[in-house]
């Protein structure tokens, strides 16, 4: 099924809710008793053999994904869950940022995490070690998460009302840009060990994100990374993008990220 990189190759995606006992991973590999197909209301005229016919379609190619993303969004809204989609190249520090955040804010906020990786449960295990509910999605050869995967992962995870749901996407700055998961905010992370032209090389991702975190600023003295230039480049691609500089190692800048995060959490509406 997978020709270039395997995106869309379905049937190979697996879901694991990490259980109390780490050595014991519960398998949430769903069969598909339901379908998310849309009903067809086109007329059922049957052309004669060899008769050619033009059909007007006017449909977005990502319609199916967008529909499921809106469904996820409705679920999150109804439960007042703040869903964030974390995207970056491999190794920029998504999991490290989550480990810090989950540990530092666990007394103040309720969290749940969905981890997306092609293989392994390593990241989910790291999250679980912080005491947070986590589901690992393994996409096999797929290089991005899609709304359908989030729908299934969320059903297994059952994030609490008024919680913050972090979705760590597969490390890839290209295709995850196209796939809405139903998130409220998209956070793109780059580290100072990457090139300062990254926003220009991956403009779709920077254009579709609301926040950019520049990580590993503890390494700035050792690398040729022009932080003002990267900020200018990111702003050229997306003038609305907010930018926060942090180091997950030293903790520098993390309070600003925590402040940003808390500002996005809506207080539950009082029951009337």
């Amino acid at each position: 099924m997978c020709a270039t990189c395997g995106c869309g190759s379905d049937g190979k995606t697996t879901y694991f809710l990490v259980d109390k006992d780490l050595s014991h991973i519960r398998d949430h590999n769903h069969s598909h008793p339901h379908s998310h197909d849309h009903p067809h209301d086109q007329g059922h005229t049957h052309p004669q053999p060899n008769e050619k016919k033009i059909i007007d379609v006017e449909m977005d190619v990502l319609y199916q994904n967008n529909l499921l993303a809106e469904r996820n969004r409705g679920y999150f809204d109804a439960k007042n869950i703040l869903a964030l989609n974390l995207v970056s190249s491999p190794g920029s520090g998504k999991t490290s940022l989550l480990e810090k955040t989950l540990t530092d804010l666990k007394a103040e906020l309720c969290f749940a995490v969905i981890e997306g990786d092609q293989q392994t449960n390593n990241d989910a295990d790291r999250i679980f070690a912080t005491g947070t509910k986590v589901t690992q999605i393994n996409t096999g050869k797929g290089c991005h998460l899609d709304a359908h995967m989030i729908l299934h992962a969320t059903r297994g995870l059952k994030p609490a009302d008024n919680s913050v749901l972090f979705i760590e996407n597969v490390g890839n700055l290209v295709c995850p840009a196209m796939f809405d998961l139903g998130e409220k905010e998209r956070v793109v992370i780059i580290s100072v060990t990457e090139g300062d032209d990254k926003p220009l090389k991956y403009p779709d991702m920077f254009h579709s994100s609301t926040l950019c975190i520049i990580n590993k600023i503890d390494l700035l003295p050792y690398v040729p990374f022009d932080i003002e230039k990267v900020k200018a480049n990111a702003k050229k691609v997306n003038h609305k993008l907010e930018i926060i500089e942090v180091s997950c190692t030293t903790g520098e800048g993390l309070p600003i990220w925590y402040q940003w995060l808390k500002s996005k959490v809506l207080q539950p509406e009082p029951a009337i």
Partner: protein
Amino acid sequence: MHELSVVMGIIKIAEDYAIAAGAHSVDEVELDIGTLSGIDMDSMDFAWKQAKKGTMLNDSVKKINSITAKAKCLDCNAEFPIKNYYDACPVCGEHLINIICGKELKVRSLLVS
């Protein structure tokens, strides 16, 4: 990269519509693709050839309407074609621009038999 997912999406839509119309094959797929849709045409061609095999689109050709991306400057209101998100306004040089079109990725029509 993700072009295979996109092609699979196109095939799914085309087959659904063709089946609903009682057709047995899709001869042509007309697509609207914006120049800022994030689609790489070479990857798309490759994925297309691979993925349509054995489907109702086996002998299908794709006709692509390429839609040139345009933006509007928030400072001076100029409208202009752009190649990249980071292009500056050609009139005032600012980067405060909004994309007006060019992100399209749509199946416009099918020719079935």
